[in-house]
């Protein structure tokens, strides 16, 4: 056990730093070609780097003031892109990965549906094989980035005659297909829309854009969600991102609100929790270093991290008093740094309720922890074993 991070003069670090300094106006294309976008992937995409080297490269990209490709194109570079390494054909990899890693093609996930959120397996979007194309029909919702995406990762039902989780298949679709209609959803934060609904009408997808085999869809999206949740095991205010308890405490000290004994102890509790979340994230990273595949710890981590984030912005907002009701104004000072999308306590607070809903509600995560980690009995789902077409609910979209 050794919590020391790779040192500032680590030769691996110096090499990366030297290259980045020699390329002051580096493009995402060049970054990808160098293997720095996904260093942990095998060649030709990455360097087969161990997670320690991956961490170094990530830190150096940040140090150089570059927005990391996985911030710009998280689904393509992180959550879904790597599924192509496992389930994609050579042809598919060559077609989709270079533009994704170069951030020319932004990707989005098209998973949830209006009637299938937590029970994602009950989704109704259909994919029907006609010759060498699938025809996809249905409606997706809560799709981040869909309005700026070129590629959509869709899960659809290819076989309604088998139980719901078995008849699902994943496809990569062209978001510019005339059958794809994207409508932004204004969420309660009132900020520029983060989510969309996506209508799919007779979208034609070549068979070669199918990821994996028919029926493998459930497994693939579970892995992708696991990867996504792993990235949320962090102490930030929304899904692990944004300011943490460290910045909260700093603002409270600055304004002397920390001298209120109740605020003080609550802030200290949040600080303690935040530091422990950092340790869970570190440990997850080490599990990767040690060659253990990402597993259920992401569910447990997100189960803790998301409510923690809500409590952070809640305390921040409460200490602002009535002034906290003014739109977009932070009364509590936030130390200057790059927080990404969630860059004010105000936005974190009003966006906050999404934290324990999106990417697995806390209730679903608790079920997963209880059933898969503690080994408690599975919830009763009367629809789980029936052929999908016999479940008493509205039929497939035409």
């Amino acid at each position, binding site marked *: 056990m050794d919590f020391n*991070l790779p040192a500032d003069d680590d030769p691996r670090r110096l090499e990366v730093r030297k290259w980045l300094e020699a390329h002051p106006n580096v493009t995402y294309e060049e970054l990808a070609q160098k293997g720095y976008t996904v260093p942990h992937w095998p060649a030709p995409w990455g360097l087969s780097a161990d997670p320690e080297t991956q961490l170094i490269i990530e830190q150096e990209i940040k140090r150089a003031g570059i927005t990391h490709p996985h911030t710009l194109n998280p689904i393509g570079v992180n959550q879904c892109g790597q599924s192509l390494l496992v389930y994609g054909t050579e042809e598919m990899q060559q077609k989709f990965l270079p533009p994704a890693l170069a951030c020319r093609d932004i990707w989005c996930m098209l998973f949830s549906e209006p009637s299938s959120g937590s029970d994602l397996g009950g989704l109704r979007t259909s994919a029907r094989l006609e010759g060498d194309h699938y025809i996809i029909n249905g409606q997706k919702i809560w799709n981040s980035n869909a309005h700026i995406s070129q590629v959509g990762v869709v899960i659809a039902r290819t076989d309604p005659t088998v139980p719901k989780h078995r008849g699902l298949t994943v496809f990569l679709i062209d978001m510019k297909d005339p059958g794809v209609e994207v409508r932004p959803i204004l969420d309660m934060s009132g900020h520029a829309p983060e989510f969309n609904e996506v209508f799919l009408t007779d979208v034609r997808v070549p068979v070669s854009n199918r990821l994996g085999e028919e029926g493998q869809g459930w497994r693939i999206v579970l892995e992708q969600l696991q990867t996504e949740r792993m990235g949320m095991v962090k102490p930030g205010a929304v899904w692990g991102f944004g300011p943490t308890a460290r910045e909260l405490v700093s603002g409270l000290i600055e304004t002397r609100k920390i001298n209120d004994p109740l605020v003080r102890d609550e802030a200290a509790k949040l*600080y303690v929790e935040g530091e422990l979340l950092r*340790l*869970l994230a570190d440990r997850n990273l080490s599990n990767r270093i040690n060659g253990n595949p990402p597993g259920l710890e992401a569910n447990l981590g997100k189960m803790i991290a998301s409510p923690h984030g809500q409590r952070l912005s809640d305390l921040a907002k409460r200490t602002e008093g009535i002034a906290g009701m003014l739109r977009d104004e932070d009364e509590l000072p936030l130390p200057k740094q790059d927080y990404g999308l969630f860059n004010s306590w105000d936005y974190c607070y009003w966006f906050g309720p999404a934290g324990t809903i999106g990417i697995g509600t806390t209730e679903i995560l608790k*079920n997963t922890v209880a059933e898969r980690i503690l080994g408690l009995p599975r919830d009763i789902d009367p629809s789980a074993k029936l052929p999908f077409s016999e479940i008493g609910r509205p039929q497939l979209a035409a």
Partner: protein
Amino acid sequence: MNFTLSEEHIALRDNARAFLSKEVRLDPYLKPEANEQPVARDGLWDEIRKLGWTGIVIPEAYGGLGLTYIDLVMIVGETGRTLAPSALFGTLAGAWAVERCGSEEQKQSLLPQVAAGELSLALAVADPNGDVNGLSHGATASKAGDGWTISGEKSFVVEAADADKIVVMVDVEGTPGFFIVDAKAQGLAMERLDWRDITRHVSRISFKDVPAERLPQADGDSWSWIRDRLYLILAAESAAGAEQVLDDAVAYAKERIAFGRPIGSYQSIKHDLAEVAGGNECATAGVQYAAWALSEGTADASKAAAIAQSYASEQYRAATACNIQVFGAIGFTWEMRNHLYYKRARANAELLGTPRDQREQIMRILESEHKHAA
């Protein structure tokens, strides 16, 4: 960098677990008589001393194994998981006081005996009013000729009954000073307290002109140095105890049928247990980090120890409360071991100050860091 346990650490933990699961007997504590009369100690402490656990972190120069605090928490955690009734806590505490405050000669003479399992110690810190900062004058040291004597009272002393010698913290001119006395010395009287957590011996000690040997290297930082290590082992006990009560509750929830189904199939139970599992992961992570930080002597070691103790003790309380709730009424009876854990959890959250006290320590560190950064 590697934030996970090595195979050696896991082997150490598993060996300790195997030994303790065989040797620790809690049945005598679950008989109604245990409510009336203290349970006599069995041979466990002798066995533990034979295994050399008292010398794990004593430096090799003083006859110990000189292992790290990570190794130590692997073992102490298991004593917490099983509530192993022994004098290990007191002996480790006393040995740290000697290591930090003793003269070279004292260390050479005392620590090898501790490491060899020949000398059991206890550390008397708290005053009868519960203050653990050593400055409220429960007992005082006075010069007597070439030496010192101690008079007054100390209380809440863990495992003093099994100790051969007791290290006593008293105020010497505004600074906590440390003295060592013979447990059998003239003028020393020990009274066993009717302590709720019956798997631990806790005593009040009165001193009347008891001859004492000063540990001369004590300074203003000695107590926090010792206390950080005590935080660590209490937190290690708590984190592993919390795992045990979760395991027990999960096993019971799979077995117990109500309304035709195991109660563990109801979300109300599952979700409570999942939450305990989450908190337990955090508690364990905090303990392991603090153990590493103290081993390395990092700048944040003290903060890490306070984080571990404040969180693990509260998590232990939450886990034991949930454990009894899941068991229902049977978990509330004396004959079940659930209450032993519940009481240990309560005690661990009070013994060295409350979790809120530790958070105040953390906050002061943060304020001072903030000031230096500005």
